[in-house]
């Protein structure tokens, strides 16, 4: 009897194992294959640290590792989703001004040299301009302004010494923009022939044609990556590349390359494709040269703020899908955005557009402008549709308050040079935010000493508030400080955000293990967990 029972139990257990393992087997990751992705343009260089464009981050992030990283499998980046990478663990001292990383041992660079704490020290010395072989361009130097020095303790421990506590210091390490570079490779070499510790080795970059990466067989995460290779083809014409994706030439589109109107075409012609609409965390923003009369008058700037009808712009440009937003991306994707009830109170955000514009016209009339005496202004922007389209709508809206705008399209390659030289009065610009964190966004775009503060807006009080929120350990208090900064920025019309765009990224159903991040486009391109179910 007992043996029968035992046999029955054994049989049931075996059946259970078979039944439960069957679906698992169906979902087991398959190794091999080449992931084919198209690239939208000709990337400037392979050096992530020297560029501020997704065009470089997306293909090259897989070559590298960070100290820590945003979890590639979670859609939303937050402090809670930061996971170890080259650092096995990290700890703060009691004063919260020393951050120590315990580094992984046995990791090798793609050229076979060992990874050590010296590489970490060297990377951040280059980022802070302390290394003789510093970066030719250093767009995120302001991120590390609070970093005093990096010390090493042996080969596998590195400590970052800060001038003052900074709550979100760790989040900057987790961005795709913050890989660890090898100390023994020059910054020049890294622009053309990058060496990393990551899952994919760089093979070839044919300008205007293709990029190729192959699996790193010595990757320190055993069994990863699943893919044998990743091949990118540069297709600058958007119609061609979308048609090529529809024709199944590619497994994945470039991130957020499928605009809302184009998404309908993709859905109808490639119904099996998986498409996700997400915020790009790239804002369309208005830049005003505060040194150019009459825009040095805060009254005019306020009138302009009141004239903007953001909802109409969003309805026309993205069929209502983009985010009405302040400086920080709003919920549900954003962690720090102003709640709608507070946002409404900012100038130009209130619901009654007619009332706002009536107030704006009164301001303009008090300054001597009216239907017979309009203020003539050139609205400058890059010669790219995503810049031009909102600029055209802005001109139309400014007409309502006696401002007669004329569109000035600038050759895209010299846009930043012209803006830096202040050769504009009013402009329409786009700004991407790599990490959903106030320090990254506020220091980079609004602090007095940031090189990427394009309008060179400088308000010492706002700077103090930015420092204050940066040191605030209590998250709720910090949020309130951030919203106060947002209020001041809106009142000063400091690079006001018109909207944060949303667009789709699509992939073929055979692409597995890929998770699109929804509050940053810059942080999820490691591709080590991606596999092809062919």
């Amino acid at each position, binding site marked *: 009897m007992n043996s029968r029972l035992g046999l029955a139990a054994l049989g049931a257990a075996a059946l259970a194992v078979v039944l439960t393992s069957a679906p698992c087997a169906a979902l087991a990751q398959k190794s091999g294959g080449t992931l084919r992705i198209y690239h939208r343009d000709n990337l400037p260089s392979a050096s992530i640290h020297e560029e501020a464009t997704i065009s470089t981050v997306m293909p090259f992030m897989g070559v590298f590792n960070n100290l820590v990283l945003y979890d590639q499998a979670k859609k939303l980046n937050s402090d809670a989703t930061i996971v170890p990478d080259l650092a096995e663990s990290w700890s703060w001292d009691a004063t919260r001004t020393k951050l120590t990383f315990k580094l992984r041992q046995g990791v090798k660079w793609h050229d076979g040299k060992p990874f050590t704490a010296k590489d970490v020290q060297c990377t951040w010395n280059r980022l802070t301009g302390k290394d003789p072989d510093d970066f*030719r361009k250093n*767009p995120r130097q302001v991120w590390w302004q609070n970093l005093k020095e990096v010390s090493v303790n042996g080969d596998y421990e590195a400590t970052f010494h800060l001038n003052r506590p900074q709550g979100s210091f760790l989040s900057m390490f987790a961005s795709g923009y913050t890989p660890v570079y090898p100390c023994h490779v020059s910054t020049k070499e890294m622009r053309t022939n990058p060496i990393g510790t990551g899952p994919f080795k760089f093979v070839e970059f044919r300008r205007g044609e293709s990029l190729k990466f192959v699996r790193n067989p010595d990757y320190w995460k055993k069994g990863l990556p699943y893919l044998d290779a990743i091949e990118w083809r540069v297709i600058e014409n958007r119609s061609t590349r979308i048609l090529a994706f529809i024709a199944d030439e590619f497994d994945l589109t470039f991130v957020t390359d499928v605009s809302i109107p184009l998404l309908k075409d993709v859905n109808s012609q490639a119904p099996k494709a998986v498409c996700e609409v997400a915020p790009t965390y790239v804002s369309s923003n208005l830049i005003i040269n505060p040194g150019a009369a009459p825009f040095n008058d805060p009254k005019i700037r306020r009138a302009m703020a009141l004239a903007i009808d953001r909802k109409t712009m969003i309805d026309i440009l993205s069929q209502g899908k983009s985010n009405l937003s302040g400086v920080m991306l709003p919920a549900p994707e954003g962690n720090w955005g102003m709640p709608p009830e507070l946002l409404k109170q900012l100038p130009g955000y209130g619901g009654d557009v007619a009332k706002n514009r009536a107030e704006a016209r009164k301001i303009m009339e008090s300054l001597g402008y009216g239907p017979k005496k309009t203020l003539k202004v050139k609205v400058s922007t890059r010669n790219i549709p995503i810049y031009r389209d909102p600029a055209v709508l802005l001109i139309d809206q400014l007409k309502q308050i006696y401002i007669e705008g004329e569109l000035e399209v600038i050759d895209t390659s010299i*846009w*930043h040079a012209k803006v830096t030289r202040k050769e504009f009065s009013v402009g329409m610009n786009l700004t991407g935010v790599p990490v959903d964190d106030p320090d990254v966004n506020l220091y980079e775009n609004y602090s007095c000493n940031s090189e990427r503060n394009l309008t060179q807006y400088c308000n010492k009080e706002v700077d103090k508030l930015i420092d204050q929120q940066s040191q605030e350990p209590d998250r709720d208090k910090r949020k309130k400080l951030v919203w106060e900064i947002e209020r001041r920025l809106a009142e000063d019309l400091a690079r006001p955000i018109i909207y944060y765009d949303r667009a789709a990224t699509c992939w073929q159903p055979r692409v597995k293990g890929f998770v699109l991040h929804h509050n940053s486009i810059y942080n999820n391109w490691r591709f080590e967990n991606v596999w092809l179910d062919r």
Partner: protein
Amino acid sequence: MSGYLIRRFFLMLVTLFGISVVIFVMLRLVPGNITDIIFDSAGFVNPKQKQRIERELGLDQPIVTQYARWIGGLARGDLGYAYVSEKPALQEIAPRIPVSAKLAGLALVFSTLFGVTLGVVSAVRQDSTLDYVLRVVSLSGLSLPSFWLGLLILMACVQWFGWIPIYRSTPESFWKELGLLALPAAAVGFRSSALVMRLTRSSMLEVLRQDYVRTARAKGAPERSVNYRHALGNALLPVVTIVGIEAAFLIGGLIVTETVFNIPGVARFLVEAIRWRDYPIVQNLVMFIALIVVLVNFIVDLLYVALDPRIKFGN
């Protein structure tokens, strides 16, 4: 004849020198240089770092020194380094030339073959239904921009065959490459063929009304012999001129076609290099294209003699 050839050779050298000066100066008159563009992708400009790069690239030198350095290098076969990729310019340019040359050659063959044949048919069958159809086709060829035609071809291929004829990697065989380049060549050659067709038609009609053609017919020469032996040879002279000019203009058509069909040719690369103010690439490529145009014109001049014995290169 030899005197003419020597004169033409020196004239070619003078033309190339003029072009080298014009392109060199014009590039430097365009607002912004490579350092502005290098910084553009970083979203800011740092004046100190910008100066450092300008010094490294020799852009802080007087313009005459820069020109002398470039021409001196060119004479030695040293094309310099591409600013963007930091690779030798020759290494960047050389692999792209055959791709564009094949595309341009194929487009030229397409335009000449179709243009001349259909032009003759249209003239011989003047005012017939076929003539009207061909005239409409030629008008549409002149009116349709090649980028639009290219996109229509791509959309049709995706819609009907689920396949897109874009360039992926270098094809393994000549025939595969021919197959891949045929559609873009047709897109870019369609406009030229329309032009050649119209010119052939009008030229043929003019010749067919000449006395010697009437005489040939009166003597009882077969219609085929009159049209193709007596008339076509003389009607081709202006056609050869226009084909020569079109060969030079083809580069303009290639730019958009290479972009739409994603062909890694020299024309698209040139536009990209201009956008990046990559002076070594632009200067050397323009000189190369100028050399081709000058040579094509020279060959056209020589063809005149072959086609029309009345033309002689005298004093």
